[in-house]
């Protein structure tokens, strides 16, 4: 394993470039598939760091332009919110 293999691609879940390249070679050639096996894109950053890096790897390995690759579904919330605050706001709206 060389240093490039150990480069962290997903900071939330400690996924390395080596992990990503192995999965692409095994046939997991979309961000969503790699996400479900490795947890990249599921952490607090929600893929804001890893997605573009992984898409670039997939594009290089498969010869497709990045624009042709499917991104993950963007889901709310845009940033982490404490559940008790959401609950408090909901009760306030009901009053």
């Amino acid at each position, binding site marked *: 394993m060389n240093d490039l293999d150990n480069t962290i691609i997903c900071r939330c*879940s400690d996924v390395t470039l080596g992990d990503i390249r192995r999965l692409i070679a095994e046939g997991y050639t*979309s961000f*969503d*598939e790699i996400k*479900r*096996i490795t*947890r990249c894109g*599921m*952490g*607090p950053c*929600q893929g804001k760091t890893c997605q573009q890096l992984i898409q670039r790897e997939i594009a290089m390995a498969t010869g497709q332009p990045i624009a042709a690759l499917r991104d993950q*579904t963007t*889901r*709310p*919330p845009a940033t*982490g*919110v*404490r*559940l*008790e605050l*959401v*609950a408090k*706001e*909901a*009760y306030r709206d009901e009053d």
Partner: protein
Amino acid sequence: MRTNADIVIIGGGITGCSIAYNLAKKGVTNIVVLEKRYICSGSTGCCGAGVRMQWGTEMNCRMSKFSTEFYEHANDILEYDGDVEFKQKGYLLIADTEREIAQFKKNVEVQHACGIPSRMLTLAEAKEIVPHLNTDILLGAAFCEKDGFLNPFKTTDAFHRAARRMGVEFNTFTTVTGITVENGRVRAVVTDKGTINTPVVVNCAGGFSHDIAQMAGIDIPVYRERHQILVTEPVEPMQDPMVMAFGLNLYVQQSPHGSFIMGRGDANEPRDGRCTSSWRFLEEMAKTVDNVLPAIGKLRVVRQWAGLYNMTPDRQPVYDKSEQVEGFYMAIGFSGHGFMFGPVTGVVMADMITGSEPRIDASGLRLSRFAEGKLFVEPSVV
């Protein structure tokens, strides 16, 4: 893509992958699995991941016990390189009405007759297991330490890889556009990437099972309903079991990774197949969990998602072959329990399709029960 197959399975979720694996194990390997997106991209990949044996009917107890015992050894049986991450720390069912307590007591008797180690708990005992439980609003609880939850992606991946090693062909990003029926028999499955001649098709299409059946001219009484889940930031381990309440309407687990995953049902959810997220769910879920498990209210939600329940009139699945079209089989209508029944589904369907002696009696789940008015009523569902 193969152009001739003995069996075509439509759907690459836990159901389709488990059936493919079980058929291959019986020696039928000229199988093609068709998946519109990628493996585990549908309902299985969106599910709450729980596996419980605390049911209220003998059949569900028996079937879920089979599935749980399979999942205990899934890594070895499926010879999986990874880990399906079975966290077997129990299900704590909580009740806030006398009616629910009475039901739990009846259920525990049924469970004991099936050899399931469940028991009623006092609120003090429940609080020992889950210290952050707000017992002020509860009346009692039931617990089974052998229940748990596991990683749906890896579990499905394990079935998929095992089936592929035995010769099953998986075609992802392949959409079924039609099913050719001639003289009352299945002849072929048409996809956007070509046609596969086959005498047998198995409908495992989850939220799209109705559409697939229509392609063969078969009408089945199922509909799809959106169900939503949210997940928090990961924290140190603080909750062992899945906490679930039918009346208070929630289920909450802490994944091995540390995040809390939680969901609830809502009869007002859309039935048009959309999988968007709603503000209403976030608010209702936040209110419920903040009330029942206040410590979790302190955590930040990082994502919501949604998937489709494939619902039947009695909220139990259908394992059957069509009487209208020969060669058309279905494992559909799981109504939210498809993942936990995955191992049992594969065995039941593989025996049915190959005409072998059934290893598991699932005769109560045939399609004709709706027309005959013999609904299979399970009291313990969310």
